[in-house]
């Protein structure tokens, strides 16, 4: 194997790293809009996948414009790439917030890990931010979890184009109607569906249908001015003395459903019952009975009986 490797020049092999033609790709805007128009937030793992792809090929540039969703495209295989002049990675922050569901009126569609990350990135305090694309990638993964697979990306795009299509891997989550579109003023009163949280680790695909039908409710922390984001970030500042954010433990609630792998966990066998169960005994036995002074049996009864007996004997003797 190694001989074959060394005998073939690396440079001779084309990597075909060119970007896909625009007409063959899918704009991120469409993905976000189509999901959000149906009251669903794009799964967090999909967002991570998109940004991971972009950042893995990020070339720093001098553009002063924020990167817009229109500039990000996804090829048919699920690989996201940038179709705009290169900029510094901080120009991606607003798009990350939008992709995670950050809206004008409410932030409750953003998962907790995302809130901390966004709060940190947008903080005005003097804190460290990702120095480069590589560091930003690792921050994203730490805060939001692992990226979706290409298959899941394709599923997500298919779901965006055809809402009726059944997805095996995706688990959409309702988001507040207020996040549907940034430029639409929909005055229609809509009952807000509950945000859902996937409790516990990975959910088996077989369970996903039921879970999708009845997501576990989470009381959303509503905020009128985005202060929740900031407050979370500030909390992160104060919790850790360092200038590095500490992200919440895997809280990517909207992540794509994955199938559980056989983890290397040993079965637990307990040979005996816990001590508490082994020592089940009567609470108190007769010998242990404790009488308080006030509880002592009265001896006055005997005096009455004796008096009655003496009286009877006296009457009989008469």
């Amino acid at each position, binding site marked *: 194997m*190694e001989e074959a490797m060394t005998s073939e020049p690396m440079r001779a092999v084309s990597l075909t790293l060119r970007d896909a033609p625009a007409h063959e790709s899918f704009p991120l805007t469409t993905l976000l809009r189509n999901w959000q128009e149906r009251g669903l937030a794009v799964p967090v793992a999909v967002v991570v996948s998109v940004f991971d792809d972009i950042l893995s090929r990020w*070339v720093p540039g001098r553009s002063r414009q924020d990167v817009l969703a229109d500039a990000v495209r996804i090829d048919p295989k699920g690989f996201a790439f940038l179709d705009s002049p290169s900029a*510094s990675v901080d120009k991606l922050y607003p798009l990350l917030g939008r992709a995670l569901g950050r809206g004008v009126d409410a932030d409750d569609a953003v998962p907790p890990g995302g809130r901390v990350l966004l709060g940190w990135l947008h903080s005005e305090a003097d804190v460290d931010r990702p120095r*480069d694309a590589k560091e930003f990638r690792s921050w994203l993964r730490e805060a939001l979890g692992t990226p979706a697979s290409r298959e899941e990306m394709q599923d997500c795009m298919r779901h965006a184009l055809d809402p009726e299509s059944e997805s095996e891997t995706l688990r959409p989550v309702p988001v507040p109607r207020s996040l549907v579109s940034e430029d639409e003023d929909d005055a229609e009163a809509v009952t807000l569906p509950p945000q859902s949280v996937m409790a516990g680790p990975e959910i088996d695909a077989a369970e996903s249908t039921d879970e999708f039908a009845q997501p576990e409710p989470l009381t959303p922390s509503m905020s009128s001015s985005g202060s929740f984001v900031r407050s979370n970030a500030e909390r992160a500042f104060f919790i850790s003395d360092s200038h590095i954010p500490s992200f919440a433990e895997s809280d990517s609630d909207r992540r794509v459903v994955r199938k559980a792998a056989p983890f290397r966990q040993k079965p637990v066998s307990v040979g005996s019952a816990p001590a508490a169960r082994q020592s089940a005994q009567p609470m108190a036995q007769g010998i242990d009975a404790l009488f308080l002074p006030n509880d002592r049996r009265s001896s006055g009864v005997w005096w009455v009986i004796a008096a009655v007996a003496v009286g009877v004997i006296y009457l009989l003797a008469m």
Partner: protein
Amino acid sequence: MSGQDDRRSSARIPAELRVEFRHLGRPHESFSDISRDISNGGIFIDTSVGLEVGTEVSLDISPGPSALPIRLQAEVVRVEEELPASGSSVTVRVRGMALRFVGAPSHELARLLGLVEYMVEVNGDGGSDDV
């Protein structure tokens, strides 16, 4: 050639690539994680998925948009675990898996190493002051 000799002869290049892997025995289960380093003999993936040593998996790595994925087969040779502070072996947490390429076509390996070189050029370890 022993495993140790193999490791000595192939330099590991730190490279964070998205790797999708699936158990050959259960092809419907796929996982997506990031590589820590790559050599021409194998790859280390940072993942919480711990497969048994000896398990054969297929790997898919996308070099870029509109590019055919690099497809390789590999075998789990080591699983890196992290014991919790309590020392309980019941709640062992997997940190990553070392995989050795098995029967990899030379052109696919060449594509992979070419991609790694490209990634090192683009991202580099030296970092950048672009923010």
